[in-house]
């Protein structure tokens, strides 16, 4: 497809999706291979407006971080696998955005997974939950107790007390301590 034909299709898609002008301009400002590749993915995965906005922003940021083009990002195996996978377009579109987020925030995603695994390992009883701060934007853990009686409360508090070692490890990771000692260079 010729460059002007690609641009015309991008404009049509942007109009259909009511993509904000600022985002359309950013898309059209990409190199020709990147413009075309994103168009192919947007059409193939049926990206909705919000997903298209997210994809544009994430791809631009990954491209700057890694000093590569958007086309190079989209040609990676993990992206191609999603595009070629069976299943519905909406589920593949969600997986596509999630993969871009993971690429954009590799250490954040890894840390979130590690903390979630630590919380799961506590095997807390029903009614007692630990919630991580949103996007690990603070060092606070939210502890919730849902009870209907004093007896239930006692049991949950006891369970919480039995988890102090694991909780201490979670706080240490949240606080950037040695427990969070991943080799940053391998990320």
């Amino acid at each position, binding site marked *: 497809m010729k460059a002007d034909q690609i641009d015309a299709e991008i404009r049509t898609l942007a109009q259909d999706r009511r993509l904000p002008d600022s985002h359309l301009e950013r898309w059209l400002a990409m190199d020709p291979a990147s413009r075309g590749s994103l168009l192919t993915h947007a059409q193939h995965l049926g990206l909705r407006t919000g997903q298209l906005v997210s994809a544009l922003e994430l791809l631009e940021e990954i491209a700057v971080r890694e000093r590569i083009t958007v086309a190079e990002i989209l040609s990676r195996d993990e992206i191609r696998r999603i595009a070629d996978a069976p299943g519905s377009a909406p589920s593949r579109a969600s997986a596509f955005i999630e993969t871009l987020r993971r690429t954009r925030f590799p*250490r954040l995603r890894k*840390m979130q997974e590690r903390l979630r695994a630590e919380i799961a390992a506590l095997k807390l009883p029903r009614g007692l939950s630990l919630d991580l701060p949103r996007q690990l934007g603070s060092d606070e853990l939210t502890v919730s107790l849902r009870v209907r009686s004093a007896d239930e409360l006692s049991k949950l508090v006891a369970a919480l007390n039995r988890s102090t070692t694991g909780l201490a490890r979670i706080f240490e990771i949240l606080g950037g301590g040695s427990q969070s000692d991943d080799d940053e260079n391998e990320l």
Partner: protein
Amino acid sequence: MMKMNFDLDALFIEHGCADSTLAARIIRSIPAGVPVHHVADAREVARPAHDARDPFGAGKRQMIIARRKTPFLMACPAGSSKFACCGYLVLTLASNCPMDCSYCFLQEYLADNPAFQVYANFADSFAELNRLVKSAPGRSFRIGTGELADSLAFDSITGISRELVRFFAAYENLTLELKTKTDEIENLLDLDPRGRVLVSWTLSSDNVYRSSEHRTASPTARIAAARAVLEAGYRVAFHFDPLIAYPGAERDYVRLIDELLDSVPAKKISFISMGGLRMTPALRTIARHRFSTDPMLCGEDVLASDGRFRTFTPLRLKLYRTLEERFRKAGAEIPAYLCMEPASIHERVFGEAPIKPAGLGERLASSRPI
């Protein structure tokens, strides 16, 4: 030593300032080809050129000499009840900066008046300082000129540092902090600061310097300048701010500290500060527009509870703790604080709650390495 290049398109002198010492010094120092205009009200000139592709950058090509009509002395604008502050007082003798760091908060803070401004009546600030000293006998104050401008970036054309050093040298309970990313120290070297002037450098890893700190002196040159002023009788301090948590950052910052400690003994450092990169959404938009290819502006930052984008907390804290540990291993108890972080983060990094801003300000003002 790198000489600051201003690339001025024009110099504007407000009515009533043409005969000032400062105007004479600046006219003598700038290239002969720079046109000089006399204007009634400098505020008009200070405004951004909205038709320019980069209004903020265009502002950095205009210089204004005007009278400052508001007080020179104020509390640090970064201070907030949300943060554990350092009690820093700001003396505004200039506005905006000839260097151009991609992350600089002035891009948002001075977006409506980006032209360089220097104040012909800067000596009036000495009367304000006198009043401050008289109002609080026995208290010590740390006063810096490096908030809305780099403290030494204009010094090759204004020479103000010499008057400042002489003034502060006479006051036992005032400490002047000249905060800079330059190595323009020649005006300082033949003066006697009598232990009352502290020159501080923002230090960044070489990767951050190359990617984000345009027109600044290299980290190695900053460290060499620190060594030189130390030998000339000044106190020195270092700001690791903003710390940027790119992959490999810990290794690079530890190397930077090693390089620093090879030149400046730990016991000679008055204090250090650290602060992670933080950007309001507006600043982030401006910075990314002006420096669209800088990877340091695309870190793993998330919207924190104070409404600023910051590196996600465990990663930011890990970087603080790594630097703190490296300085602790150096063996000297260097006073340290975090800039624009809440008390809880301070406690995580240093293992103790921060002292109150006024107390910390006094401690930093009076800490005098041997």
